[in-house]
């Protein structure tokens, strides 16, 4: 690693590993903070003491905490997230089958949101304080304030019940290929998840573009004789996108938590639905596995945000030296 950028990557990766380590500590702590212990939570209030003791022995919960943590950690390092109490499957395989579907859902809706929000924000900025700006701003606030489940129900009523245009439920057996072969089932979940994101990112883009429009370099570009389209589309946009792209990375966990509600409503067979069902049945290994994964996604997201920022902004890049 001779380049400063390589060093920066290495340093950030090392930091990410440390953060993930702390996350495992917290997740482990959560498991043991359950009132009455894990066994009581799973076996229920009626379980006898003998039953609980034997459960604890079987799961290794009778050993000292540091030993348990060490066991937990070494299992993690072998990609073993434990076994679901209720589904009789390893958490790893449960997540592996559902993660790609959730990634499609969140990925597509983020892409849709980005593609819609950025031009919207730019347009608002150049039409600042005109009718279009006010209308979109109002729409953005409504979109942001509407609870996701309410929006989902609204969309289902309009596009499924009334217009019969789109399916409201995703067949639970669909694998990734089938999902992509029937894109119509994706439309409503994707739109539901994208609307609040569009609201946030259009506001963000709008203010970034407004800031950059009043910068001196914008005046220089105009004084050069650059057409307005070029001033906004190249000079201003390039500088405005840097913070927006960075924000996108930090938005990863928000998208994941949004997916939990959306997947439940549309019966979308992803991580969110898995998490939802596990929460209802006190399936702790699944819950903790998903939390760990979301934490990992958060760390990865902010890492990607930093990298994107370094790629987009030469000042950040040379600050790395």
């Amino acid at each position, binding site marked *: 690693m001779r380049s400063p950028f390589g060093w920066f990557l290495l340093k950030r990766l090392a930091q990410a590993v440390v953060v993930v380590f702390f996350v495992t500590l917290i997740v482990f702590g959560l498991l043991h903070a359950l009132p009455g212990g894990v066994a009581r939570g799973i076996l229920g209030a009626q379980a006898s003491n003998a039953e609980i003791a034997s459960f604890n022995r079987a799961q290794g919960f009778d050993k000292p905490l540091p030993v348990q943590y060490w066991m937990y950690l070494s299992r993690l390092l072998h990609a073993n997230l434990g076994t679901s109490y209720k589904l009789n499957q390893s958490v790893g395989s449960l997540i592996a089958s559902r993660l790609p579907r959730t990634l499609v859902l969140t990925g597509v809706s983020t892409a849709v949101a980005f593609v819609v929000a950025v031009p919207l924000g730019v347009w608002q900025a150049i039409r600042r304080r005109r009718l279009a700006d006010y209308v979109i701003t109002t729409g953005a606030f409504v979109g942001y304030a509407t609870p996701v489940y309410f929006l989902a129900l609204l969309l289902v009523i309009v596009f499924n019940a009334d217009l019969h245009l789109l399916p409201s439920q995703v067949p639970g057996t669909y694998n990734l290929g089938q999902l992509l072969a029937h894109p119509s089932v994706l439309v409503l979940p994707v739109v539901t998840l994208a609307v609040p994101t569009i609201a946030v990112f259009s506001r963000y883009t709008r203010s970034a573009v407004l800031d950059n429009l009043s*910068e*001196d*370099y914008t*005046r*220089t*570009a*105009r*004084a*050069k*004789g*650059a*057409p*307005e389209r*070029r001033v906004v589309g190249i*000079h201003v946009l*390039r*500088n405005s996108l*840097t913070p927006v792209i960075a924000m996108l990375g930090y938005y990863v966990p928000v998208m994941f938590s949004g997916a939990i509600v959306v997947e439940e409503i549309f019966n979308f067979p992803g991580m969110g639905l898995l998490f939802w069902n596990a929460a209802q049945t006190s399936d702790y290994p699944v819950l903790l596995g998903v939390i760990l994964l979301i934490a990992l996604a958060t760390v990865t997201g902010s890492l990607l945000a930093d990298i994107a920022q370094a790629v*987009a*902004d*030469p*000042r950040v890049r*040379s600050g790395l*030296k």
Partner: protein
Amino acid sequence: MTSAPGAPRRVLGIEALSVTFRSPRAEQVAVRDVTIEVYPGEIVAIVGESGSGKSVTALSTLGLLPPHAAQQGRVEVDGLDVRSLGPERLRALRGARVAMVFQEPMTALNPAFSIGWQVAEALRVHDRRLSKREAMRRAGELLVLAGIRDAGRRLGQFPHELSGGLRQRVMIAIAIACDPKLLIADEATTALDVTVQAEILDLLRSIRDRMGTAVLVITHNMGVVADIADRVIVMKDGRVVEQASVDDLFERPQEPYTKRLLAAVPRLQPHPRGTRLLEEVAVPTRPGAAGSATPTAPRAPVPGAPDLRRSGDVLSVEHLTVEFGARATGRLRAVDDVSFSISPGEVLGLVGESGSGKSTVGKCIVGLVKPTSGRVRLWGEDLSAASGRSLKRLRRRCSVVFQDPGSSLDPRMTVAECVAEPLVVNRSGSRRSRDARVVSLLESVRLDADLRYRYPHELSGGQRQRVSIARALALGPELLVADEPTSALDVSVQATVLDLLLDLQAKFGFGCLFITHDLAVVSLLADRVAVMHSGRLVELGTRDEVLFNPKDPYTQRLVAAAPVPDPVEQRERRQKRLALAGGPGPGAEAGSTGQAGGGE
């Protein structure tokens, strides 16, 4: 109306231009009935203080005024009526026939694109057929033309990697890309050091000479006017007050405003003791210094004032070194082994360019920056060793005035609260006696006592700086550290503040460290002068030694580069300076990131 010899077709003709900024609540007339003509090959300066309408006038020539500006009158550039042009023809005019160089080269360049790209863009927006490669090649040539030597290497660099002077050269390369008929430089050298300013002015002159470009220089600096202009237009409150050739204007100013403006400009000359800018009468009020030509000896204390000489030097700085930055990235030595002292009642001028470390020295003295090594002694006591009550006692006796009163006064405190704060912090006096003290302090800085209920944003820049000075004087300091206290002010305001400082210093007899980049200001008020360059103290001596017979080569260059507000003298100085630099021509730029970070 002045017209150039031979009277060829004018490049710029502004006729009866008025510009009004309209907002729902107020209307503000920025330019009133202005008529200006500029002819090919001419350098015309528009000079005025802030709010005079000079920049608005300049922006109107490119049709760059904001949408809420209502215009009347005619603006003609190279035969085209700017106000009647549609967006596309206006765009074709900008950069091609008239180009502009702005004040702050850091923010005026796009941070996200390489400078080669930005120069090449200026070519390509006016010639769509030009290939990227060809545009980049010509961008390299333009950088050379703008006096950047290693242009090939610079093309791929980004604005933040260049020094202020280099950035301004890039701006000029962009401006001359399409060989415009008129080049407008709007305060183009204001943010630069004097030595860099001199080079940029040389560059503008050489562009005029080589390409026959008319140049319109917008500035507030009379020294710049004297250096570069053929003809001068003085503006005030949106109106043209006076137009004249540069020699006539400086020798025979006609209008009272022009006369006042010229009188307010501090000159780099051996002022007799007690000189005031605006009164121009020698009042030997300074204790012990009456007409003395060699005021280096500490003056006798003011009768009745506490005997300051008892403890020897007010301030002594011994082998002061300050380093910034992390170990890994290489530490920046902002201050390098600096030693000097100030005796009671003495004014020491500390001069240097940006990044020289002069402000860092000031901050060490008031305890805002911890020295890496070396000592600051106040009245013989080591500042870094002092703590608790003794530190508080030392701080009471020394106060500070910063550059920008807009940001160094708390916007949520009234003037009275600002001025009284040092008294409150030090539990000095009762509420009523503090109010009386505030009134007398405001009187001593010649502010009306009724102003004490106002907030800083309701005051003008000059009034705010007086409030800062009143606050600094609240505890009757024996040492005042003033860091560029007048640099953010207009010349006429600067003159009143400088006169005030001189009067106060004479009255109270405090020692003063006056930090500035302006040699003329130093020549007005300092007893001794210290010159800093790249963290080191290169010269220290009496004012007359350092400013008028400098020994150190850097001081010599610095003194030679400072423009004086007298065209005849400035021409001689320019010849001398160019001889010192080893011949005319631009391109004396060496460092790249030297001033970009800055340790000040």
